[in-house]
């Protein structure tokens, strides 16, 4: 089930949907499936562009990989990000390009025969479907300032934590990215999904139970209509899902 809907704040103000996501079935591999969500920074100009480029490259890398493991996939994501950055950064490089185009979170869910493994830089939500079909939504790293990977390349950025450097090219390949990693056994859950932080709007609302029912039913079209309907009904207060929302389960 794949949902990707533009938030009402974005549609009202003519800002692109900045969530990007995909799922890929891995063939001839120890891993069954990889799902990825990238959530662009709302305040940035066009993070959807950087996220889209990254997603395309990362997906094509995954398609080519054989005998993969969770760690190899995470490393491939880092390698993919560095590859994108190497093509953006040069001697006359303007760091504002990164702030405009490359600020996005990275949320990876890897499923094999016995487990789900999660790696995340930034925020989002984990969705758990228990063996009794009970759905729980768990916010991860919820924060107004996610540690976007591109911050590592922007010395002037307030969120930049390393020593500033004037020589950007020399930094490539040496930076470290800190992922939060989680591991869940298949015996403990019927399914696990991931979502962008736009899903936070449903938590604790009167509509949460209906949302969960649609999730359990894997009613993708019904879920999309439900989101549209909620936004329409809450039009006077600017919609229900103001931020973009992506759900993969």
């Amino acid at each position, binding site marked *: 089930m794949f949902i990707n809907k533009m938030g009402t704040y974005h549609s009202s103000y003519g800002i692109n949907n900045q969530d990007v996501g995909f799922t890929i079935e891995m063939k001839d591999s120890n891993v069954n499936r990889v799902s990825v969500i990238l959530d662009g920074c709302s305040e940035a100009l066009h993070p959807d562009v950087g996220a889209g480029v990254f997603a395309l490259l990362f997906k094509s890398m995954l398609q080519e990989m054989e005998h993969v493991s969770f760690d190899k996939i995470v490393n491939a994501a880092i390698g993919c990000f560095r590859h994108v950055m190497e093509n953006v950064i040069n001697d006359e490089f303007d760091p504002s390009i990164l702030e405009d185009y490359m600020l996005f979170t990275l949320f990876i869910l890897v499923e094999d025969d016995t487990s789900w493994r999660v790696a995340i830089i930034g925020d989002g939500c984990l969705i758990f479907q228990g063996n009794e079909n009970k759905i729980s939504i768990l916010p991860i790293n919820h924060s107004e300032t996610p540690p976007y990977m591109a911050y590592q390349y922007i010395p002037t950025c307030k969120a930049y934590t390393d020593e500033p450097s004037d020589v950007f090219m020399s930094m490539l390949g040496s930076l470290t990215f800190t992922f939060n990693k989680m591991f869940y056994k298949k015996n403990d859950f019927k399914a696990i999904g991931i979502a962008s932080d736009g899903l936070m709007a449903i938590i604790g609302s009167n509509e949460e139970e*209906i949302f969960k*029912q*649609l999730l359990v*039913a894997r*009613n993708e*079209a*019904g879920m*999309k*209509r*439900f*989101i*549209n*309907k*909620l*936004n*329409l009904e809450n039009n006077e207060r600017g919609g229900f899902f103001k931020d973009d929302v992506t759900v993969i389960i």
Partner: protein
Amino acid sequence: MQSNGIKVDGMDEIDAQNTPVDDLETEDVNLFFLGIDQSGSMDMFQSEMRKALVDFKRAIENSKEAQKILVARANFSTRLAIGGYKKIGELDVDYQSNGMTVLYDTIIEGTDKLFVYMEHLKQQGVRVKAAFALFSDGLDTASNHTCYAAKDTVKKLNDREIVTAFISFGPEAMQEANDLGFKNVLEVGRTDSELRRALNVLSKSAISNSKSVVNKTGDFFEQ
């Protein structure tokens, strides 16, 4: 009762007449109103029309857009029978001609039903596009409504950016279609092969309009 557990008064009847929202397999649909002239002047084309309708149905069924297209067939002669918006597999391909032509009534009552279902779908979060197409070989001869009222209705369709399309089977209905304000008017010859071509154009146009992000209000016909 909707799948989301919300009960909405008066909506069960709309769902019963048309395709219930819960039966839709997509979040967006393209409604296609197909009004077909069944007046006596079409007698000699009955067999060909049945074949053309079979082809029309098959073309949409075999397209990638099939899940998104709901067709309401309206048969008009002396009487008017407007069906609900149904999945293409449910389209009736029978054809019997007889009697006069209630063209204006078809436009007005067909539009009313279209607007009701459109609004119903929108309230349920469905994204809706619509096309209103008529196939006729002649002038109105028996409507209860006036030409003025029909013209006003076509304007309402156009104002809501719903595709308005008219296929004139022979030259007689051309002027009427233009006077009524249809934005897409196509004249085809009054022959078997042209009839087949007309329905072929309609199926291709319905599919193409469904693929389009916005309604092809001014360039609907795909020939």
